[in-house]
């Protein structure tokens, strides 16, 4: 019988930008078991949201995650709008779509850069992050915030996109798409990248269903799942295709992220072209009563919000199920059997976001 050793991976580790600990049980260089340890980043946001009033909670919801922040505030506002029985104007819905897709774009570029950095391809990491900076500039020009946009409000959005800005968005999106082709070609076709990702961290289609994988992790295992496909809100009025790969490995997950970047760019272009005229905010009054569940597609996968109000100034219950929370069980399935040196790449390949998992 071989002697096994427990190697702690994290909470501080060069490839992890957030505190996640995985206790790896290894035999020689092979990982045989994984025990996760969570809770380093718990902030009690759900309880905090029950103490605040419903408007202040928009800013609380936006800070659940530092990367996919806008979609959190959108989902929260959509929940409150449903409880209040109001509808945000079509123009506001399209501005929300543009903001959400910009968030997805910068999140995916962050992922691709971090993945390249994870296996030591730092030049590629710099290329992706240089382009990501332009997306952040676009977000700041639209809303005033580089990452935390603060643009969503109950009943619509707080800042409009004028014609000059719309033209600037289309121009910049076109240039970003053109400049992204060489680094994306590199990450998808490079020999070194393929050596580090192909066949690593296998999650079959059956396992993805069994362990409840969501988002790019599920789509890389051949599952055609995307909440945007339900066509809720403005997503019903734009054309887009869902990226699905059959590789089931870290390379397939990278490819899904890389190809989704172009889908987001196309969605932004379409939304700016179809931007309806009119108001950007519906007036509302009153307090929330009743309960609602909403799902939305984050860059990392499906997210669920549960909001319950009992007619008071504050909410009675606020619950968030984030995509990384659903993708952790599949990660624990991927790791046993891999080499110790492949653990960082496999962990990054699910695009973990620990801050929003622990809230």
């Amino acid at each position, binding site marked *: 019988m071989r002697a096994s050793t427990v190697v702690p991976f994290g909470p501080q580790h060069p490839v992890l930008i957030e505190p996640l600990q995985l206790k790896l049980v290894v035999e020689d260089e092979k990982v045989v078991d994984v025990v996760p340890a969570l809770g380093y980043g718990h902030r009690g946001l759900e309880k905090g949201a029950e103490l605040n009033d419903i408007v*202040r909670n928009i800013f*609380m919801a936006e800070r659940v995650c530092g990367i996919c922040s806008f979609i959190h505030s959108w989902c929260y506002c959509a929940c409150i709008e449903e409880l209040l029985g109001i509808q945000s104007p079509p123009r506001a819905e399209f501005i929300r779509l543009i903001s959400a897709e910009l968030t997805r774009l910068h999140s995916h570029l962050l992922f691709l850069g971090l993945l390249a950095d994870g296996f030591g391809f730092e030049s590629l990491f710099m290329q992706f992050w240089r382009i990501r900076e332009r997306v952040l500039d676009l977000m700041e020009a639209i809303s*005033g915030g580089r990452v935390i946009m*603060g643009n969503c409000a109950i009943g619509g959005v707080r800042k409009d996109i004028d014609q000059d800005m719309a033209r600037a968005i289309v121009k910049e999106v076109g240039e970003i798409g053109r400049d992204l082709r060489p680094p994306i070609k590199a990450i998808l076709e*490079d020999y070194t990248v393929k050596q580090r990702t192909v066949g690593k961290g296998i999650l079959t289609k059956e396992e993805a269903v069994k362990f409840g994988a969501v988002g790019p992790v599920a789509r890389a295992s051949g599952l055609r799942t995307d909440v945007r496909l339900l066509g809720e809100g403005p997503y019903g009025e734009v054309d887009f295709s869902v990226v699905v790969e059959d590789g089931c490995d870290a390379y397939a997950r990278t490819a899904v992220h890389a190809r989704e970047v172009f889908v987001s760019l196309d969605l932004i272009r379409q939304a700016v072209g179809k931007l309806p005229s009119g108001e950007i905010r519906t007036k509302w009054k009153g307090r929330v009563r009743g309960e609602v569940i909403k799902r939305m597609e984050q860059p990392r996968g499906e997210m669920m919000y549960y909001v319950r109000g009992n007619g008071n100034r504050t909410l009675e219950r606020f619950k968030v199920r984030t995509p990384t929370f659903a993708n952790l069980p599949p990660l624990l399935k991927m790791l046993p059997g891999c080499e110790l040196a492949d653990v960082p790449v496999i962990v990054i390949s699910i695009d973990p976001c620990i801050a929003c998992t622990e809230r």
Partner: protein
Amino acid sequence: MPGMLGQVLRNLFSRPVTRNYPAEPKTPFRAARGTLMLDIDKCIVCGACEKACPAGAIEVKPKEHLYKYDPYSCIVCGNCVEACPTHCFDITSEWRKPVEKMETMVWEVTRSKERARRTS
């Protein structure tokens, strides 16, 4: 790696994308939420901004005639700008300068139309 060679050569012979800060500061975007400015003379001490602030950066004490604003807790979300009935607030696109000592701003205010006085 050979796929990146063209890009690497272009980078080698092109100007750096980083800015020569602080000699060349960034021009802020028009919509950028930089610093919250407060015109205390317009304040009627209603406390709407205190209720609206998600960060708890504003404290209004009508009985003690005090108005406190902590710019270092402020997240410049603009919620107080929307809540204020007399439009006391404005957000400029310039970011706040770094300081040596973080101090809460305190004003002495009254409900009457007397001019408010900054006490610290």
